[in-house]
């Protein structure tokens, strides 16, 4: 039986408090001498005689549930007093909350839980072109000295071409290409050798104004506006003696800042015998691409530029590169939070992280910013899979301005490409004045390029779901709420390569393969796009020869199972050739056009708020919510408003049944409940 409702009475004793208490703006109030921060509401802390309840138990509990779902935490005493105030209007309260951060956070959680857009630490992102390794030398006078360099950097000096910029004769060290410490006994490098081959740079990680002619705003000193989240490790800030460094020494080629460089041609031939100059590796030969394009300049942002030209470096203040604290590709550089469920401003921890972790972290933040924008501004939710816009801060701009790929650029040379080809994010669209070390400035990029499609073309999605099929399955589940479940059919031996036809496989793959085909131009574990001009679906270049074999360079891209003596077929394309050139944007369009898209959004949000999966009993509610959602133009705010005002949500309190019974049962057993 419902409790009789108490007559509402005027709020007594305390001034009405605004409920928009900015729950997420609770700043740190750790004032010296106090144990905790500011209390939730001083005015509400006065304990007088116990007042009579102004609301029914159900009303209090509804309010608590609404606060948890819409504000993101339980109500404070002050907010409960506001509820008890005469004239309190719950509808208005709900409407006010819908525009606040709490709802955005709640919905963001729903979709981050569905997409899980954080990449495993096992996935390393260490492109040679943008990673600076570090070697410790014995400098002039015997003092230790750090010198930064890039692996495989071409140099005009033959002795060090493709290797570290000082020879063993000059430094006493041989610097291996693998992630190992240099070998040999360091000898004192003369100032003349040092100046001839290295240069001092004031890099972006030390100076807030690194693009200035003579940077002066050093981190921890004059640079007062550095983000609180920007935390370079001491290993980057100090020299080998532990004292703060005012500049870093870099190999001369890496320090260059030109936009383009000439291709390096040496005319060398393969020489027999051990490598000269006490090198660990033979002298590099001329690259086939360089020979063919010798008259052309190469863009220094190209992934292959440092292996083709001695005139391409890391840019002004080394802004195109990330520094490692050792002679490894994935050293540590910055402190980052491992976990920040309440947002970047309120991490649960922070510690030294690798370069890969730095990149992965900001990939995730890009997706978070993008989703937050859709939710906070109540945009058409289909934008999540179709929009070309995104948001970038300094680290993301750095990543996107020098397009890279997880596959070596040499693999694409036979197809006429010098590097990764056509990026999914056109670097020309990046804001020009965004500094690499600006973590807090998030610029909206309205159009990433014609291939962009919401989260589907973000590196975090493409590497989290590294294979074409994984990507297809992920969007099928996240946005259509469907799963691939194998039918109860007998698996028989088969040599049918077409999984849409093979018995036992076709029940899932007839749907999955066409979805996966949208991602056929984004190679596995990669975030670059294979342009149709270089990689046609059917390529004569990769046809099978008389022995039934295709050229070796075709294997990463063309599938021999679907190739013949006339052409090779692009991997992942066989089931839906039309989808291949549409790319991920085609997948986004198909998802957005599906009637299941809205149904799935309703299901995800409703089940999150109700705390259970929807059942057939909820069919009427689901239908009604879907109509509301679609009629609103796929706006989440309308969906949430309709949901939290529905009787199904408002009466979802279970306390009057199971738990209440257990409480009553507990009375006999004692204990403070």
């Amino acid at each position: 039986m419902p409790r009789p409702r108490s007559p509402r009475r005027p709020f007594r004793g305390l001034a009405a408090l605004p409920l928009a208490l900015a729950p997420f703006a609770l700043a740190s109030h750790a004032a010296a001498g106090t144990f905790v921060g500011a209390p939730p509401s001083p005015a509400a802390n006065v304990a007088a005689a116990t007042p009579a309840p102004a609301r029914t138990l159900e009303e209090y509990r509804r309010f608590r549930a609404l606060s948890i779902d819409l504000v993101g935490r339980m109500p404070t005493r002050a907010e409960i007093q506001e509820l008890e105030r005469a004239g309190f209007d719950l509808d208005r309260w709900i409407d006010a909350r819908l525009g606040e951060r709490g709802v955005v956070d709640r919905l963001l959680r729903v979709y981050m839980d569905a997409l899980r857009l954080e990449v495993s630490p096992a996935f390393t992102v260490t492109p040679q072109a943008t990673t600076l390794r570090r070697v410790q030398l014995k400098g002039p006078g015997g003092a230790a000295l750090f010198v930064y360099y890039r692996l495989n950097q071409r140099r005009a000096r033959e002795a060090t071409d493709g290797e570290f910029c000082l020879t063993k004769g000059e430094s006493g060290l041989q610097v291996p290409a693998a992630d190992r410490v240099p070998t040999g006994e360091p000898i004192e490098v003369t100032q003349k050798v040092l100046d001839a081959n290295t240069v001092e740079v004031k890099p972006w990680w030390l100076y807030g104004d690194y693009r200035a002619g003579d940077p002066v705003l050093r981190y921890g000193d004059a640079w007062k506006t550095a983000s609180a989240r920007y935390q370079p490790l001491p290993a980057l800030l100090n020299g080998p003696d532990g004292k703060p460094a005012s500049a870093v020494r870099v190999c001369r080629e890496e320090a260059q800042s030109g936009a383009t460089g000439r291709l390096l041609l040496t005319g060398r031939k393969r020489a027999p015998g051990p490598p000269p100059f006490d090198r660990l590796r033979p002298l590099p030969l001329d690259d086939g691409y360089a020979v063919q394009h010798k008259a052309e300049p190469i863009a220094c942002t190209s992934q292959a530029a440092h292996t083709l030209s001695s005139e391409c470096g890391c840019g002004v203040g080394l802004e195109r590169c990330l520094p490692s604290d050792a002679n490894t590709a994935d050293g540590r550089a910055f402190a980052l939070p491992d976990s920040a469920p309440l947002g970047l401003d309120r991490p649960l921890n922070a510690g030294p992280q690798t370069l890969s972790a730095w990149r992965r972290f900001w990939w995730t933040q890009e997706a978070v910013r993008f989703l937050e924008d859709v939710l906070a501004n109540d945009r058409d939710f289909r934008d999540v899979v179709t929009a070309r816009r995104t948001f970038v801060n300094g680290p993301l701009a750095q990543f996107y301005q020098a397009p890279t790929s997880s596959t070596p650029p040499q693999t694409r040379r036979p197809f006429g490409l010098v590097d990764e080809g056509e990026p999914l994010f056109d670097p020309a669209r990046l804001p020009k004045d965004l500094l690499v070390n600006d973590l807090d400035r998030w610029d909206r990029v309205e159009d990433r390029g014609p291939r962009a499609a919401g989260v589907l073309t973000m590196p975090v999605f493409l590497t989290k779901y590294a294979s074409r099929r994984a990507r297809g399955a992920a969007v099928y589940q996240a946005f259509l709420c469907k799963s691939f479940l194998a039918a109860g059919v007998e698996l028989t031996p088969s040599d049918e390569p077409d999984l849409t036809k093979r018995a036992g496989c076709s029940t899932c793959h007839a749907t999955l393969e066409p979805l996966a085909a949208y991602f056929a131009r984004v190679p596995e574990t990669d975030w670059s796009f294979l342009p149709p001009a270089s990689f046609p679906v059917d390529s004569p270049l990769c046809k099978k020869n008389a022995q039934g074999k295709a050229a070796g360079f075709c294997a990463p891209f063309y599938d021999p199972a679907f190739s013949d003596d006339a052409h090779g077929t692009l991997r992942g394309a066989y089931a839906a050739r039309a989808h291949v050139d549409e790319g991920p944007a085609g997948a986004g369009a198909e998802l957005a056009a599906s009637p299941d898209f809205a149904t799935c959004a309703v299901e995800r949000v409703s089940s999150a708020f109700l705390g259970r999966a929807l059942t057939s009993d909820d069919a009427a509610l689901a239908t009604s919510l879907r109509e509301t959602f679609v009629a609103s133009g796929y706006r989440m705010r309308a969906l949430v408003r309709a949901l939290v005002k529905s009787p199904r949500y408002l009466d979802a309190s279970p306390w009057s049944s199971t738990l209440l019974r257990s409480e009553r049962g507990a009375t006999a057993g004692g204990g403070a409940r």
Partner: protein
Amino acid sequence: MSAPETKRDARARRTSPLLLLAIAAGAALLASGASSCGARPPELVAPTAAPAIAPRASIAQDSAPKEEPRLVPAEAWLRTYLQLFGGLAPLDAQARLRGADGAQIFDDWATYASAIGLPDHRFDLPRGTQTNATMLATFERLGEALCARAVEHDLQGPKGGTPPGPPPLEARVIFAFEAPSPGTKLERASFEPRFDVLHRTFLGYPASLAPTDRTGRFLSLYQDVVARHAAKDAPKSRFTPEQAGWSAVCEGLIRHPEFQLY
């Protein structure tokens, strides 16, 4: 070696063919009877109205949804916890919770993150949507830490604070009431308004609306703890008996199922 045949065995061996013949004849008879039954039309039993069942008692139908309570999302739980702690950022709160006791009262958030149900998408660890033993133990430990530090702040006053002693009511975070003087035996009338403050703080509604006599039971808890701490053989504590009593009440509420669920 076989046993010699007895007369009885020999008689049985002689009569068995006759017995078999009789069984066969009986089976044939039964079979013919069955076939003649199958040929008969089925008997129809006319429906009859069920007699009315006389009501013996009348109770209201319970039409409340029979759903399991929802677990408060880990982020909402964490945000509430921090808000109860005065709105500090997690790392600031962690420093205060650890205080001078190191990990004796509180380890660190990273240790508790997955235990309280936070997902870790890097490792595809999903969100905890149901309680488990580790989660409850973690809630308990975190609750104890908060209540202990709140007693220190609200009822003892920060060390070196000026003036010394508990802060004014408006600066208290959890125990926003005047504690009784040491040695005062707290009866229900004076316990009730103080408990109501805590009940509203943690469970979001007046204690008088609780489905059970929660005030009475927590009063018993308070009195038991105070008595134990006041006993001559009680172990040393950094809390007075009354402070220990309020800490126990706070712990009882923050680990209450109604706090974790909604």
